[in-house]
């Protein structure tokens, strides 16, 4: 028999967990379905320093606190669940998973984003997307950072703090996009850091499946040059995780969902929240706003649905 809820929340990041808190406060029976563990991208952030009440906190620690709160409020959380199929149209939405079929009148899509992968065909094991996870193995070694945005520059600082010998930062555009403050911080380590703009990776050179060096291309002067590199950390922005519903719901050209002011989508009873929503600023706090509005709007939708029966 299918398990029935008031709200199924797809995803387990901060938007999803905030929606769960508000759903619980509205006495709605909600479930979080997360393919990995709750926390989303925040889990891979070394330090969060823009979250009210927490001047500086490890991202995973912050998300664990939120998850504890969600669990204490009685919301069911199903982690490492595999979703096979969604039905989003009609009055009852359904989610087919490896743990059975779940149904609800409302679904909140909060599947977030993931790091954009390096556009090179390779199985090189020395390419990484999480400095917290893999940074420490490069102590006293040389690392290439791909991407000159806030993530690339801030993670460079983190890697330097681990004792990385030297960092080469490359950015394919003609300038860095990180904040002036972050750039200034990195420049304090200029003896261990070099930065190239308008530069991309041409070739990875491996020896016995181990990265030895990279050939870089500087488009400013059309020059190819080599750097001895032991590991690469990639911070080239993010892509939305919409594979499950990209054919079921309207997405814009960039793969984001454009919601109305209630976080509603093109389908009744389907709401969206967090990083999969088109917006100007993708922040923890804006994701929390989305989750709040989505859950409250969902509660109102369910009330109307019930009163019309």
């Amino acid at each position: 028999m299918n398990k029935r809820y008031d709200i199924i929340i797809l995803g387990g990041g901060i938007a999803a967990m905030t929606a769960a808190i508000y759903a619980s406060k509205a006495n709605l029976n909600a479930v979080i379905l997360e393919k990995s563990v709750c926390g989303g991208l925040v889990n891979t952030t070394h330090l969060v320093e823009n979250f009210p009440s927490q001047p500086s906190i490890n991202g995973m620690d912050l998300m664990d606190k939120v998850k504890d709160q969600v669990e204490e409020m009685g919301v069911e959380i199903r982690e490492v669940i595999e979703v096979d199929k969604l039905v989003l149209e009609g009055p009852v939405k359904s989610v087919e998973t490896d743990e059975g079929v779940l149904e609800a009148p409302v679904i909140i899509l909060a599947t977030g984003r993931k790091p954009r992968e390096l556009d090179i065909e390779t199985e090189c094991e020395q390419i990484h997307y999480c400095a917290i996870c893999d940074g420490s193995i490069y102590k006293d070694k040389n690392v290439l950072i791909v991407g000159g945005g806030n993530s690339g520059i801030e993670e460079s600082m983190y890697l330097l703090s681990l004792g990385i010998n030297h960092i080469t930062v490359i950015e394919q555009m003609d300038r860095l996009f990180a904040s002036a403050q972050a750039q200034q911080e990195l420049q304090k380590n200029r003896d261990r850091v070099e930065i190239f703009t308008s530069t991309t990776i041409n070739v990875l050179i491996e020896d016995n499946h181990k990265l030895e060096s990279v050939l870089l291309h500087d488009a400013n002067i059309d020059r190819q040059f080599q750097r001895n590199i032991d590991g690469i950390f990639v911070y080239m922005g993010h892509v939305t995780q919409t594979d499950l519903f990209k054919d079921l719901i309207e997405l814009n050209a960039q793969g984001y969902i454009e919601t109305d002011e209630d976080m509603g989508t093109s389908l009744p009873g389907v709401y969206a929240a967090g990083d999969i929503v088109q917006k100007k600023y993708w922040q923890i706090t804006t994701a929390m706003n989305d989750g709040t509005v989505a859950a409250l709007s969902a509660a109102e939708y369910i009330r109307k649905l019930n009163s019309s029966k």
Partner: protein
Amino acid sequence: MITEITDNEFEASIASGLNIVLFYKDKCPFCNAMKKILTKFSGMPAAQGKEIKYFQVHRENNPLATKNLDVGRIPSLYIFRDGEKVAEKSGDVSYRRLEKMIS
């Protein structure tokens, strides 16, 4: 369900039978996910009757096993049968993928 082992216990732990070893570290969300996947997998039909033992090794605290297996990216899973490495995979491994690795 997953037994923590150290460098000193590694060889003896994997010496016989079918063993799955997870290399992890603290503050690694994907490692936490992998532990939950292993726990879930252990209860699945594919794992039943195979007498699989599950171990985890903290990469930072166990340099010998880490070096011997050339562990880089984590989480990294290694499958041993009677002490011989038969499969390895780093990064995301779904339990469905794990089923195939075991078979």
